[in-house]
Structure formats: C-alpha cells, structure tokens
C-alpha cells in the first residue's frame, strides 16, 4: 500500500520534548495509582508514539534524538521502544531487564496486534506481559535493547 506521509508537517525538537514529557506524566500517573491498567496505559502511549514514527520511517532517528536529550552518558539503546522507555520511565524502577521485556512485548504487539485492538486487550488475550515478551523472543530471537 502506498503510504501517505506527513513530511510537510515537520516533527520539531520541541514536539519531541513535549511527547517525552507527556509519556513521563503518563508514567508518573501509572506509578501513583493503584490501577493495574496504569502500566498498560503507559506502554500503550509508548507504543503509539513509536508506531507513527515507524510509519514515517523515522523511529530510529527520533529515538536517537530522544536519547541525546537525556543527561549524558546514556547507554547505547538501538531499539526505539526501549529508548523511549529509558527516557520516560524511572530507571530506578525500570532496570535493563524490565525495559528489555517491555520492549520485546511492544515489538511483538507491533507485528501481531490488530490496529483496532487496545494494547491491554491484546496483551491479556495473549496471556500477559511476560508471555508476550517470551513469545517475541521465541519467534524472533532476543535482540540487543
């Protein structure tokens, strides 16, 4: 399918910063509430941001820019999902292992999730976060995140 892109509406550095702030707010909300769906809302926000970046074939570029905005030094993170999680979630609570698991889950959803389905419904239907992440690793192998 020929994709209609939005190159005529540039995504500014300020817009990138605003997007990261929005996800940080989502993360804070999810941490301060006891709602079990909070983490799904946060991950869904990460998913939706990287999804449109990927559609525009800019996911790696924007993720790299997002990492450059962080206090240096930052680890080398190739996967855009993992990079955005690193930039927006508290690294004391989300260590490398958790980040890597969530990134695998989101990559799995990117391949198999129906556009109409919410991330939380998809993940629940597929057995939960751990199972989705494991499935991704099984199908595609673990990649560096």
């Amino acid at each position: 399918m020929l994709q209609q892109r939005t190159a005529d509406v540039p995504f500014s550095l300020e817009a990138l910063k605003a997007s990261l702030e929005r996800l940080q707010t989502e993360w804070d909300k999810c941490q301060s509430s006891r709602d079990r769906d909070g983490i799904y809302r946060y991950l869904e926000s990460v998913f939706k941001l990287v999804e449109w970046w990927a559609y525009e074939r800019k996911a790696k570029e924007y993720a790299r820019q997002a990492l450059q905005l962080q206090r240096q030094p930052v680890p080398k993170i190739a996967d855009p999902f993992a990079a955005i999680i690193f930039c927006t979630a508290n690294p004391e609570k989300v260590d490398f292992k958790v980040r890597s698991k969530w990134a695998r889950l989101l990559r799995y959803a990117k391949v198999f999730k129906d556009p109409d389905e919410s991330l939380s419904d998809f993940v629940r239907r597929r057995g939960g976060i751990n199972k989705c992440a494991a499935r991704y690793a099984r199908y595609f192998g673990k990649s560096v995140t």
Partner: protein
Amino acid sequence: MPTTNFHMDKIIRELVEESWEWDRLGRTGDFVDKNRVFSETLVELESEGDAMRFLDSRGRICWKATPQLRDYLSDLRTDALEDFWQEDA
C-alpha cells in the same frame, strides 16, 4: 493546488481552522496557502504539547488533542459553568 488531507479530531480541527481564518482575515488580498497554515499550526500545537500524532485504525496519520489540552479545556468549561451558576443565582 491540491489540498493535503489532514486528519484531526474535533478539538484540533477547530484550532487549526480558527488559525486559518485569522490568517485569511489578516491579509489584504494576498494569497494564503491553507495547507501551509494548517501545517504550521499543527507544528506549533505539537511543540506546545497540545496536539499529538498517531496512526488511526485505518493506518492514517492523524492528530488529536493531548491529555494536557483536554484537561485545560475541561477546567475552562468547569470555570465557565461555575461563573454561569453564580451569575444566575
């Protein structure tokens, strides 16, 4: 000149069209490119954290109001309603 299809929710469309109207009214006979005004307004709204892009279920890039803008509008509405009831009383 072909018009680009910008897909937006109601809130963002209102803001973008208002911007277009202002731009059009502010000029005296000069040609105003609607696509350019739409594009510049969307860039501005995104930069201020008021609009966000996403892929809709049909795989199209769309813009919608961020929770920040929705909260702001909701507060405005609450204030307006309170003022209304106070005046009414």
